[in-house]
């Protein structure tokens, strides 16, 4: 049977997004795939150069931000106040829109993502989008997100920042590693610091390795080994040697010390 491509839908993004909320899963599924088929071709190198993906992102953002219309004569709340407009689409649909946006997002939709962060039910998917947007402004928004409530969410933000580089990111992670009130967030930040080829990070990580918290201690010892590897791989070999030797003379487990020995052998 010959392989034939499916025919692209001629419905608009707006029409398809509405179908994402269908109670019939099949309809919602088909709409999702149809939107993907519209946006993905605009993400090729040539299309991006022509910025064909930008209007796609804008349309999706518009749908995410769409609110119900509230006419003046409409019902008022108990206190006689006008009900504020609500999101037009359900949480489930808005999360699907965000996920689609992650393929084609640009800085132009950062305000949409900032708005999505304000909603506890959409902020996780907003983070998903931001993870795939690598611009400086997107990174700034990630750093802002460190102020969000909920340690699990902040762990996600830290993990996302840990994949980026730059002075601002490093400063934010250092602050989080020492000042966040939640241990799991501090642990995540310590782990993230190992991704930066910054010898000074060893001071923070080493301090964490002396923590009373068993989980912090274990995470920090592993992070030290990874930091040494990061330094080794970015030509800061003398610093890598220092960190490896520090691990060997520390109270790290035999497993981490073995990794340090292996790392030193590779430098010889």
């Amino acid at each position, binding site marked *: 049977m010959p*392989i034939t491509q499916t025919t692209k839908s001629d419905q608009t993004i707006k029409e398809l997004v509405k179908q994402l909320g269908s109670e019939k899963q099949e309809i919602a599924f088909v709409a999702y795939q149809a939107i993907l088929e519209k946006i993905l071709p605009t993400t090729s190198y040539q299309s991006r150069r022509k910025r064909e993906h930008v209007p796609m992102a804008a349309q999706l953002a518009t749908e995410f931000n769409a609110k119900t219309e509230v006419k003046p004569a409409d019902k008022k709340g108990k206190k006689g106040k006008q009900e504020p407009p609500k999101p037009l689409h359900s949480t489930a649909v808005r999360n699907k829109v965000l996920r689609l946006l992650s393929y084609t997002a640009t800085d132009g939709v950062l305000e949409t993502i900032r708005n999505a962060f304000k909603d506890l039910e959409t902020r996780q998917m907003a983070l998903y989008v931001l993870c795939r947007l690598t611009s400086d402004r997107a990174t700034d928004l990630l750093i802002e997100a460190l102020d969000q409530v909920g340690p699990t969410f902040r762990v996600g933000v830290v993990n996302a920042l840990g994949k980026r580089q730059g002075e601002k990111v490093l400063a934010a992670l250092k602050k989080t590693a020492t000042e966040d009130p939640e241990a799991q967030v501090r642990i995540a930040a310590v782990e993230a610091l190992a991704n930066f080829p910054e010898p000074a990070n060893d001071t923070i990580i080493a301090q964490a390795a002396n923590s009373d918290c068993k989980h912090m201690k274990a995470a920090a010892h592993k992070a030290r080994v990874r930091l040494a590897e990061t330094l080794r791989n970015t030509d800061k070999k003398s610093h890598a040697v220092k960190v490896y030797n520090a691990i060997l003379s520390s109270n790290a487990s035999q497993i981490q010390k073995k990794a340090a020995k292996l790392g030193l052998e590779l430098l010889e």
Partner: protein
Amino acid sequence: MKKQTLIPRRHFLKCSAGGLAAMSAIPGILPASTAKSTTRPAPSDRVVVGLIGCGSLGRGHHLSSCMIPNPRIEVGALCDVDMNHLYDAARRCKDRTGKRVPTYKDFRQLVEQKDLDAVVIATPDHWHALNAIAAMENGLDVYCEKPLSLTIEEGKAMVAAARRYGTVFQTGSMQRSQPQFRRACELVRNNKIGKLHTVTTHIGKVPTGRPKDQWQAPQTPPAGLDWDFWLGPAPYADYTPNRCHYQFRWYWDYSGGKMTDWGAHHNDIAQWGLNMDHFGPIMVDSKGVYSDKGPYDAAIQFEVTYYYDTDVILICSSEPCGQESNGIKFIGEDGWIFVNRRKIEASDPDILKIELGPDDVRLYNTGDNPNSFVNHYKNWLDCIQTRQRCICDVEVGHRSCTVCHLGNISLRLGRRLKWNAGPMTFFKDQTATDTMMGRPMRPPWHL
């Protein structure tokens, strides 16, 4: 409980820097015969293995057929997020060995168990990297089911961790331990079909049309299944029976469809025959079809073409090869060889009778037992002792799996991709780099 006898298998590295350099080279052939003991090894010589993932493959195959009956293995612990699977595995273990082993829901606790030497990982694909890295960070050797990873980024992280900790890592691409696949690749590598120009792999289609392939209403997960933990790093989705437990294979969030299900086997053999274990294709193109009604979102029918810098193309297809629905065909200027788990055949039967000479390329030989799992496990256990690299070392698994991921990425983006096979990066494709090399994980999970 910590073992009293000491021949530590979670041992310190025995080899020197020179030995380490030797380890870095492509391993030679293991001795054709290791001394077979006719008696059960002493407890101190057995490898204590934990099993992470007690589903049908984990407990039905690995535990029951490969671990419990193996005199060189002592089952040390079991882990699964589904208590039904976990306790069934524990019961099997107790019934057959008389031993109650510790059971865990959380793999992070299993890998901290002091008396373990290694783990077998048989969880869904989206868990492989996190399970394996946690094990390696705790000094354990690893046998990880194929496909090695869910994304290219995960595979890279697994390779890095294995090298960091000196892990003996076996990918479960056990076809390399099945004699006819090795034979086919040796004949190809020694030009017995002339200059190779095309390889085709035939891996079948995503199943559709069965009752369980239809849409199911979201429902409460069964008692005993921690659904949120099963999802782990994947985006949240409501539970339906056909979203997990085997059927996860057809969902992008947990796997890669037939491409990573069977493609991970046959594209691995293709890579072996192409001598591409430390490299890969430089360009990928594809055509494919997705379901027009769901629920599965992996490509159901496809043809992916990979271009190598040796002027060989690999075509991975969901379509059969003649009468054979599944297998690999190597096509050279002077003939062809077709091989699958049931047979090997050639354009000229005399090709299969060729005896290789002393100067011919010989490939890693794990043994001639017709049961590939016997050879594959033996190779892993031998390497745990010798600290050599396994036949399907983590890098081999990663490179083969990457071939599959590239195919899926090309299918998903609907375009040709250019790939820098050495450093494993995309060429001039920001979307592929930002959205397909890796995927954001649901916190708290991260690589």
